[in-house]
């Protein structure tokens, strides 16, 4: 005979505001099989948990129903409580009185009636639950880090220093990401390359790190602890084991005028190139789309000059399979394309540039050697206008969100410009200054008070070029309440931060969600900010939301610690909610095998003692089954049941609802 306990949580005011919780408990007491009911303000708190434990013990409960929040929130909490009290955790069910009831209804009487229904359904279900034991699967203690910017580098280093193997995959020929392109970093103005490049070298040389530059994720199979990832290693056309990075090849390459992506297209590069002198690995690749040999079949200047015979025009992409137990996605960001703003010149004005272009102009390793010179004619600009929120906080034509980093880097740009051009004028247009961070507000004040940047609170409505080459910037000074027109030599737009192109495809491969703007979704915005809804896949850096370097590094270390805590266990406990085949009734129609999205069902031959084949049946691989229930739905002979969601349980739930 079942003995069920019902525990109704008020969730503070969250449930109690619209649901009469004591009333629900009283009604539940009359349900067949229910032997005790309790209602309490915070069932998940320690006193609440103690009440459940006490009741399990006192009433020798065979099932527990907790009427509270979503099982996604606290089912693990309460199942742990049941286990501690000696009850199999899978004999506990949750009735969702918050998300499914109190939060979505206003009418108290109707909401209370619905809450009683939800509890009754779960009581009927739990009476038919059976004890399940967790499935244990081994963990492959190797991590995959996707993206070799500062986020990926930091995560890889932390995991590697924790003693676990890391595979670091980077799409471009070198690691370093955007940070390698920056001149100096706020709020301390330390040189970006000086703090980053040692880490690039460290991660590449780390005995626990396998670096796969110029590679992309092709496909992903498996699940937490046991991912099987296929990596496309793009053809480099240069054998890195032979190449010494001497530079003879790019000195001889006749294709010399390709825009250098690293320098925001302000500088040029050759077809065989390394992205920048401090690149890691410091070995070139051939840009197949522009190499004369690879496009027209003749030239080979680089091969002739290479004494190590490292050039291989026959090189082709390779697919490489790796087994990993956890993944850190660190794919970063790019800048929104301001050519969408016709009023700012639609991207056609050479001297209207984005923040990265200014970084390269200000960088000692940049195309101008650190002198601020404008792109059109190389002149040193005497007036530079910086426009914040270009595409940010503009839901109509751009993005609705704040890009977070622009206030700070614009202040830095204004400062760097004034340090380099003493008689120059730095003008900043802003909507609001959002300088929340350690030393950030002080930094902005310094730009204004010490370095003399002129700040105008207002939007820029138009930027155009006069035939004389001046840029006219028209905007508003909303504090003074008048329009402002400034003749500038260079305009720097703080374009919105957007996720990397193609990051949506990558997210789909890993089963990670993303928001309407394409940023990856964390498992919980407050309490699980580095994990994703896909178990074993963590996030680091600006792929999740616009972030500056300190926040990115913090999150990368957090992601690494999540990976290390996962790897600290030899095996993983998995929910035992999986499909089971009743071999006696299976007719081996193979419908389930075709339907399973995880390839978790296979044939099994049943033989007698003499080894003669008796029959072939479907068999579920416990390690691969995700418990989605597709096979149970397609099974023609009702042979497959999903543990925890058997036909008997589901029909009992429906019947409980229909009985009223």
């Amino acid at each position, binding site marked *: 005979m079942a003995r069920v306990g019902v525990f109704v949580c008020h969730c503070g005011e969250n449930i109690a505001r619209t649901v009469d919780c004591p009333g629900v408990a009283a009604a539940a007491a009359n349900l067949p099989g229910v032997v005790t009911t309790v209602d309490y303000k915070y069932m998940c708190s320690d006193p609440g948990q103690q009440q459940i434990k006490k009741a399990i013990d006192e009433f020798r409960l065979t099932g527990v129903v907790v009427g509270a929040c979503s099982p996604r929130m606290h089912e693990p909490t309460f199942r742990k409580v049941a286990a501690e009290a000696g009850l199999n955790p899978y004999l506990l069910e949750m009735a969702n009185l918050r998300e499914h009831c109190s939060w979505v209804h206003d009418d108290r009487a109707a909401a209370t009636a619905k809450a009683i229904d939800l509890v009754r359904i779960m009581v009927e279900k739990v009476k038919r639950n059976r004890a399940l034991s967790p499935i244990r699967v081994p963990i492959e203690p190797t991590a995959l880090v996707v993206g070799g910017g500062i986020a990926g580098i930091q995560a890889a280093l932390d995991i590697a220093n924790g003693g676990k193997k890391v595979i670091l995959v980077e799409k471009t020929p070198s690691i370093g990401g955007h940070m390698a392109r920056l001149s100096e970093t706020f709020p301390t103005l330390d040189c970006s390359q000086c703090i980053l490049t040692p880490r690039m070298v460290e991660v590449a040389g780390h005995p626990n790190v396998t670096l796969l530059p110029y590679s992309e994720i092709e496909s992903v199979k498996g699940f937490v602890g046991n991912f099987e990832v296929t990596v496309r290693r793009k053809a480099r056309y240069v054998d890195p084991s032979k190449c010494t990075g001497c530079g003879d090849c790019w000195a001889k390459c006749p294709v010399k005028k390709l825009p250098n992506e690293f320098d925001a297209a302000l500088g040029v590069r050759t077809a065989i190139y390394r992205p920048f002198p401090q690149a890691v690995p410091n070995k070139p690749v051939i840009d197949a789309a522009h190499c004369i040999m690879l496009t027209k079949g003749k030239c080979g200047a680089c091969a002739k000059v290479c004494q190590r015979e490292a050039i291989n025009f026959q090189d082709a992409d390779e697919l490489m399979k790796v087994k990993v137990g956890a993944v850190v996605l660190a794919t970063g960001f790019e800048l929104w394309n301001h050519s969408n703003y016709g009023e700012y010149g639609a991207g056609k004005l050479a001297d209207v540039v984005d923040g990265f272009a200014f970084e390269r102009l200000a960088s000692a390793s940049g195309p101008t050697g650190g002198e601020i010179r404008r792109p059109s004619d190389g002149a040193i600009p005497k007036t530079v206008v910086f426009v914040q929120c270009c595409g940010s906080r503009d839901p109509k034509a751009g993005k609705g969100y704040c890009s977070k980093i622009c206030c700070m880097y614009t202040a830095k740009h204004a400062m760097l410009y004034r340090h380099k051009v003493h008689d120059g004028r730095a003008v900043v247009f802003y909507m609001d200054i959002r300088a929340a961070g350690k030393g950030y507000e002080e930094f902005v004040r310094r730009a204004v008070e010490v370095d003399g940047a002129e700040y105008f609170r207002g939007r820029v409505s138009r930027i155009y070029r006069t*035939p004389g080459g001046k840029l006219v910037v028209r905007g508003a000074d909303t504090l003074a309440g008048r329009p402002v027109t400034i003749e500038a030599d260079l305009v720097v737009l703080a374009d919105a931060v957007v996720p990397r192109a193609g990051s949506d495809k990558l997210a789909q491969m890993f089963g990670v969600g993303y928001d309407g703007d394409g940023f990856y979704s964390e498992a919980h915005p407050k309490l699980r900010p580095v994990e994703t809804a896909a178990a074993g896949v963590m996030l680091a850096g600006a792929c999740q939301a616009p972030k500056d370097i300190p926040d990115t590094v913090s999150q990368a270390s957090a992601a690494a610690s999540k990976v290390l805590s996962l790897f600290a266990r030899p095996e993983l406990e998995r929910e035992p909610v999986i499909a089971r085949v009743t071999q006696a009734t299976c007719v081996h129609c193979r419908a389930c095998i075709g339907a399973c999205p995880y390839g978790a069902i296979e044939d099994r031959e049943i033989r007698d003692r003499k080894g003669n084949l008796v029959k072939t049946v479907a068999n579920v691989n416990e390690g691969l089954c995700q418990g989605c229930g597709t096979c149970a739905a397609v099974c023609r002979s009702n042979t497959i049941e999903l543990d925890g969601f058997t036909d008997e349980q589901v029909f009992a739930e429906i019947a409980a609802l229909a009985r009223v």
Partner: protein
Amino acid sequence: MNTIGYYPGCSLHGGGRELDMSIRAISVVAGVVLKEIDDWSCCGATAAHSLNHDLAVSLPQRVLALAEAQGFRQVLAPCAACFSRLKGTHVRLQRSEALAQKTRRITGLEYRGTLEIVNVVEYANRLLTDGLDRKLSQPLRGLKVAAYYGCLLSRGEGIIENEDPEDPKGMDAVLRASGVEVVPWSHSIECCGAGFSMSLTDAVLDLSRDILAQAQAAGAQAIVTGCPMCHSNLDMRQQKINSRGLGSFDMPIMYLSELIGLAAGLTPESLGLDRHFVDAMRVAGRNR
């Protein structure tokens, strides 16, 4: 599209006569019959929408209802302000059944929303794709023009379609087909002063001066517009801008349809070029 409804509005019977003449002339060349909407009335610009919201919608609704009842599928409103009022009302009535009911009550006429309302830039592009380009036998080679849209031909959500309001391009194809060179410039959507021509003339002089100055600096020999209001501010006020010492301009202001007509070999007089304040006959290679 062989016969379409024609809504001249007040300006094409008055200050914008050249627009009327040139539109009618190129329509003849293109084989399109313009049939004036019978019993048309004021579109409501600009006085009505500054003073009374109901009137601002009811006046255009009456025109649209008449056109619909007279069996038209398309209505050409060459004046940019008329177009903006008619199309804007069409859009608003589509979006609000309550407003549709209210205007029905006021005018006693029903508008079902079946009309397609076309402005001068759209009309020119359509004529072009329907074969007018083959009839442009005398392209105006060597003429540099600045394409000027102003506000009414560049903006209005749902009114101006398929156009970047901050960087419109609608005239480019037509102008290229007419043989002229379109210079890149900065002031294609700047305000000319519009309806303040009478009440705040000084502001209009300043604003129109900026437009003329930028067009001149960009190397344009003429400014092309599709709006009678812009035309009158830039053409009629040009002399006053000069006499006030704000500049010394001698910039012909052309309607888009006038350039098409010239390229089609029509006489400048038939297009109304001899009616401009600033000499426009030179664009046709003729002395005034």
